[in-house]
C-alpha cells in the first residue's frame, strides 16, 4: 500500500466535484488510508463497470450456452419483463463448485420480514384483524425446507410487523383435507363471527372447499379451529376439473342479502373466476356465469376481488360498493408464476366484472410486483380502515441451499393498497406505516450530484437493514431533444443509454464485485423550456438488476422491471426496504413495485454498502435521500410461559 499517501486526495470524480461547488456537502472519505484506497478501487471498479461491459454474468451464461451440446436446459435466464420462476431456469455461469459457508447462509435470514423459524412456507392465508390482533396464516411444511405436508401455520401481531408464532391452526386430518390443507380466506360477519373457507385436497384427490371457524371466538389468539362436520361445502361443479378448483376469496354481502365469493379455475386454457352465493356459508349456489374469463391465461390461483375508492384515500370493506368505487380483480397465474391485477367495474346485478381497459385485462396487463412474488392476498383491516396486501416471496437459490440453511420463503412487508387517482390506471402499494417503528438512526443527503459514469458511496453505517427514500432530479447535458432508443430495463445496469440507468446500488461491497442496482431508465428527456417540439413520449422504466448480486452460480440472477407512469409534475422517487436477502423496491409512491432476492457471498454483514450511481451518458443526476437503519422485528414464538 505504499502508493496510498500519493493517492491522498486523488479520487478524481469525487474530489473534482467537491472543489467545483461551494457549500456542497462533502463526500470525501475522511480518515483512513483504507478509505482513500477504497475510493481508488471504486474508481477502478467504476471504470470496469463502464468499459468492460461485456464481462458480466449475462455474457458468461451466453458463452456457456455455446459450449454445450444439449441446449434444452442450459438456457440463459429469461430476461426483463418475464421474471419466470428461478426453478425453471438453468443458470450456469461458473465452472468451479460453489461452497456456501454458514456465515453466508445465516446472513440471508431476514430481520423484519415474516418467516417461520424453519422449513418451507408458501401462500399467505386468511389474514384478518380480530380483538386487537392481526392474524396471518400461511401454507407451511412442518418437516422440510421444500414444499410438502402442507398445513396452516399461524402467527399474530399487534402491528403487522412484530409477529409471534402460534401453533398450527389447520392440519390435514380429515378425508376432505387429508391430502392438503391449501389456501383460503376469512370472512368477518357483522355479528363478529369469523368463517374461514379453504381448499382441501381429498383422499380421492379432488379439490374441494371446506368451512372452518374458531373453536372459541372470544379467544383473541384464535388458537383452535373447528372444521365443519359436513365438509366439503363446495365441490367441483360439472365441467370443472377436480384439480382446477381452489383458493376461495373473502365473501362480500350484497343487496340480494346474500354473501358472494369467487374462486379461480380454468377451461381450455382460459383462466376464469367462478361465483358462489350463500346465506349460511354451508349451502352454496353456483352462478351460471363467471365473474370474468380471460382466454389463454391458464389456471387462476389465489383470486382476489375487492373494491377500491376512486377518491383513493382509504381502504374499503370487501362489501363496499357504490358510485365512488371500482373493483380490482387479481389472479396468480399457475402457468407463469406471476400475479396480475386489473381495475374495472363490478356489475353487482349479475355478478360480472369488466376491466377499464381490455388491453390491461387480468393476466395480460399490470402486475402487482415485477419481481419474485406470488400468491398475494389482501384483506380489509377494519382497525385502521385500510386494505392490506400480503405476498409470498419464494427463494431464488437452489434447494440444496434451502435444505442446508433449513428454511425457504418469506412474506413481503404488508402493503396498503389504494387506487392511484392521479393516473387512474394503477394501484399504489406502500409498506404499512408501522414499519416506521423499526426506524433507528437516519442519514440525510440533499442534492448529491452524480455525474455520468460515477458511483457515490453513501456513508450510513451498516447497510443490510435499511429504509431508503430517494428523489432524483435530472440535469440534461449536451444538446437537447436527444432521442435514445434504449427503452426498458435493458440487459441490466451495465447497459448505458442517454438517460439511464441511474439509481442506487444496494447490498454492494466496496470492490463492487457484488451489487444490486435499483434504477430508472428514461427513453427520452427534453428541456421543457426551450424544446416543445418533441413528440416522442418519454417512458420511464423502473428496474432491479440481480445479475451481479452474487458471485454464486447456483442462484437465479435476473433483471426485473417495468415501465412506470411518471406525471409531468412528479420527480422520480423511490423507496427501498433492504433486509438481508430481500429487497423491496417501490417507484413513484408504489405505482410499480419489485421484490428481489439476493444471495451475496461477499457483500454481507459489515462488508455490505450502499451507493448512488449514474451510468447514463447524457445527464447528471441530483439525488436527495433519507436513509434509516431498521431494527429487527424480533419475530419469535408467542410467550405463553411469561407471567406478564
Amino acid at each position, binding site marked *: 500500500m505504499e502508493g496510498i499517501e500519493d493517492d491522498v486526495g486523488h479520487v478524481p470524480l469525487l474530489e473534482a466535484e467537491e472543489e467545483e461547488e461551494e457549500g456542497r456537502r462533502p463526500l470525501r472519505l475522511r480518515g483512513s488510508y483504507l478509505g482513500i484506497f477504497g475510493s481508488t478501487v471504486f474508481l477502478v471498479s467504476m471504470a470496469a463497470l463502464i468499459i468492460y461491459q461485456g464481462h458480466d454474468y449475462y455474457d458468461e451464461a451466453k458463452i456457456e450456452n455455446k459450449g454445450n451440446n444439449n441446449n434444452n436446459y442450459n438456457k440463459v435466464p429469461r430476461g426483463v419483463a418475464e421474471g419466470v420462476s428461478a*426453478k425453471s431456469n438453468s443458470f450456469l455461469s461458473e465452472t468451479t463448485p460453489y461452497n456456501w459457508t454458514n456465515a453466508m447462509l445465516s446472513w440471508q435470514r431476514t430481520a423484519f420480514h415474516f418467516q417461520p423459524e424453519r422449513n418451507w412456507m408458501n401462500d399467505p392465508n386468511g389474514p384478518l384483524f380480530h380483538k386487537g390482533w392481526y392474524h396471518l396464516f400461511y401454507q407451511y411444511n412442518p418437516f422440510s425446507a*421444500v*414444499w410438502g405436508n402442507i398445513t396452516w401455520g399461524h402467527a399474530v401481531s399487534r402491528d403487522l410487523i412484530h409477529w409471534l408464532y402460534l401453533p398450527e391452526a389447520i392440519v390435514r386430518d380429515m378425508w376432505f383435507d387429508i391430502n392438503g390443507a391449501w389456501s383460503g380466506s376469512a370472512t368477518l360477519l357483522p355479528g363478529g363471527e369469523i368463517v374461514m373457507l379453504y381448499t382441501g385436497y381429498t383422499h380421492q384427490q379432488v379439490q374441494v372447499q371446506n368451512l372452518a371457524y374458531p373453536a372459541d371466538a372470544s379467544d383473541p389468539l384464535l388458537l383452535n379451529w373447528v372444521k365443519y362436520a359436513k365438509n366439503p361445502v363446495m365441490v367441483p361443479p360439472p365441467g370443472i376439473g377436480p384439480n382446477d378448483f381452489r383458493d376461495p376469496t373473502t365473501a362480500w354481502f350484497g343487496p340480494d342479502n346474500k354473501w358472494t365469493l369467487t374462486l379461480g379455475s380454468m377451461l381450455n386454457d382460459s383462466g376464469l373466476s367462478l361465483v358462489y352465493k350463500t346465506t349460511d356459508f354451508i349451502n352454496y349456489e353456483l352462478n351460471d356465469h363467471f365473474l370474468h374469463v380471460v382466454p389463454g391465461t391458464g389456471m387462476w390461483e389465489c383470486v382476489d376481488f375487492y373494491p377500491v375508492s376512486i377518491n383513493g384515500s382509504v381502504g374499503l370493506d370487501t362489501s363496499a360498493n357504490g358510485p365512488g368505487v371500482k373493483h380490482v380483480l387479481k389472479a396468480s397465474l399457475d402457468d407463469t408464476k406471476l400475479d396480475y391485477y386489473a381495475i374495472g367495474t363490478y356489475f353487482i346485478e349479475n355478478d360480472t366484472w369488466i376491466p377499464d381497459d381490455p388491453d390491461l385485462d387480468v393476466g395480460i396487463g399490470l402486475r402487482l410486483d415485477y419481481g419474485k412474488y406470488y400468491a398475494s392476498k389482501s384483506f380489509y383491516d377494519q382497525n385502521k380502515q385500510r386494505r392490506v396486501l400480503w405476498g409470498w416471496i419464494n427463494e431464488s437459490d*437452489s434447494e440444496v441451499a434451502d435444505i442446508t440453511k433449513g428454511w425457504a420463503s418469506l412474506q413481503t412487508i404488508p402493503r396498503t393498497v389504494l387506487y392511484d387517482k392521479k393516473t387512474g390506471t394503477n394501484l399504489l402499494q406502500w409498506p404499512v406505516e408501522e414499519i416506521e417503528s423499526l426506524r433507528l438512526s437516519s442519514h440525510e443527503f440533499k442534492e448529491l450530484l452524480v455525474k455520468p459514469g460515477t458511483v457515490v458511496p453513501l456513508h450510513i453505517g451498516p447497510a443490510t437493514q435499511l429504509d431508503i427514500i430517494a428523489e432524483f432530479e435530472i440535469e440534461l447535458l449536451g444538446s437537447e431533444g436527444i432521442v435514445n432508443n434504449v427503452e426498458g430495463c435493458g440487459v441490466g445496469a451495465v447497459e448505458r443509454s442517454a438517460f439511464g440507468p441511474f439509481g442506487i446500488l444496494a447490498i454492494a461491497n466496496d470492490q463492487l464485485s457484488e451489487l444490486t442496482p435499483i434504477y430508472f431508465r428514461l427513453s427520452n428527456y427534453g428541456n421543457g423550456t426551450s424544446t416543445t417540439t418533441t413528440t416522442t413520449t418519454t417512458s420511464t422504466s423502473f428496474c432491479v438488476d440481480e445479475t451481479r448480486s452474487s458471485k454464486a452460480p447456483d442462484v437465479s440472477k435476473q433483471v426485473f422491471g417495468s415501465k412506470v407512469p411518471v406525471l409531468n409534475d412528479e420527480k422520480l422517487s423511490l423507496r427501498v426496504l433492504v433486509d438481508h436477502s430481500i429487497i423491496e423496491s417501490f417507484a413513484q409512491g408504489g405505482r410499480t413495485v419489485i421484490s428481489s432476492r439476493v444471495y451475496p457471498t461477499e457483500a454481507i454483514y459489515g462488508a455490505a454498502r450502499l451507493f448512488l450511481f449514474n451510468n447514463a451518458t447524457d445527464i447528471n443526476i441530483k439525488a436527495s435521500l433519507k436513509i434509516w437503519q431498521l431494527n429487527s422485528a424480533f419475530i419469535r414464538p408467542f410467550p405463553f410461559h411469561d407471567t406478564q
Partner: protein
Amino acid sequence: MTSLPSITLGDEKLIESTCRQTPNFNLCVQSLKSFPGSATADVRGLGLIMVKVMQSKANDAINKIRELQRSAPSPALTSCASKYNAIVVGDIPEANEAFSKGMPKFAENGANDAANEATFCENGFNGRSPLTQQNNAMRDVAAITAAIARQLL
C-alpha cells in the same frame, strides 16, 4: 424370447403424446415403458413413474460418488455428494408429493432443481468429471419429469 405385448394402442398413445412434449422423446418412452403400470397410468401417473426413474438415477450417482470418494476424493466430489443428497432428501420427495397431491407446479420446481444440481455437480469438475454419465442421466430424466409436470398445469 419374445417380450409380452403389454401395451394396447390406446395406452401407447398417451405415453407417446406425453413424451413428445418432453425434451427427450426416446428416453422418456423407454423410461416409462420399463416400469410396470405405465400402460394404464394417466399423465400424473406417468409423472410419478418418472420420479421413480429420477430416484434410480440419483442412486446410481450416489453409489458412484461413494466409490470415487474412496479412490479419488476431491472438493468437487464432496460438493456433488451434498447436491445429490439434496436431490434425494428434497427434490424427489417434493416432486413425488406434488404429483400425488395434485400440485404439479411444485413437481416442476423439484425436478428442475434436480436437473440444475446435476449440472452444477458436473460443472464443478472443470471438464474432467468422473460423473458425466450419471449427471447426464440425472439431468435428462429430471428434465423429462419437469416437462410432464408442466403438462399438468
